[in-house]
């Protein structure tokens, strides 16, 4: 299985991500779609700016998918697409799509991939407010 992994400055085509994991061997396709929310901890957010260290992000994404395959060997297909650059409210920031024979593993593997992505993949998010910007999670 070769996962489809991408970091892009173009709008994410969710249908294309789902199509990328389509396979007759799978009875379940599960997708997580992360979108830009209008507030953060109660503070209104105008838009987000994502920055990526692309080569490392793709390397680490590959490790994340490899760990998922180790835990769920029945994984048939995986696609992970992350946006970078400036995103407006409601824009799709990330899509994780997986295909498995049955549904239980599809939920678990999809959640594992997005949760682990957030811990290790070298992408940074700067929130823009009415009165300035802040790098998310940078300070304790």
């Amino acid at each position, binding site marked *: 299985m070769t996962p489809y992994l991408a970091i892009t400055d173009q709008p994410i085509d969710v249908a294309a991500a789902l199509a990328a994991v389509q396979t007759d061997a799978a009875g379940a396709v599960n997708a997580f779609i992360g979108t830009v929310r209008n507030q953060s901890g109660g503070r209104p957010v105008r838009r987000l700016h994502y*920055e990526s*260290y692309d*080569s490392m992000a793709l390397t680490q994404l590959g490790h994340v998918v490899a760990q998922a395959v180790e835990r769920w060997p029945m994984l048939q297909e995986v696609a992970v697409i*992350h946006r970078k650059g400036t995103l407006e409210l409601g824009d799709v920031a990330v899509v994780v799509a997986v295909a498995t024979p049955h549904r239980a593993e599809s939920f678990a593997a999809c959640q594992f991939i997005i949760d682990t992505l957030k*811990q*290790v993949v*070298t*992408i*940074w*998010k700067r929130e823009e407010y009415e009165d300035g910007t802040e790098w998310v999670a940078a300070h304790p």
Partner: protein
Amino acid sequence: MSLKVSLYGITRDIVGTSVIELPAPAPTTVGELLAEMRKQYPALGELRSCAVAVNNEYASNDQPLHTVDEIALIPPVAGG
């Protein structure tokens, strides 16, 4: 031996450039590099974390550094 270190996110804002060159004698390990960077830029020490990547992989403090390595500071990531 000199080293080039790439900076991303808030570390680039702190240092003020996207690549910093450390002239010889440069730090020889990841731990020495972090100590040197924190000495020059104390604001790096205020971050929740600051890792070092060598050739696209997270590196431990005792890992040696070479001029040819692709080195980067990795502040707390926030994808998704």
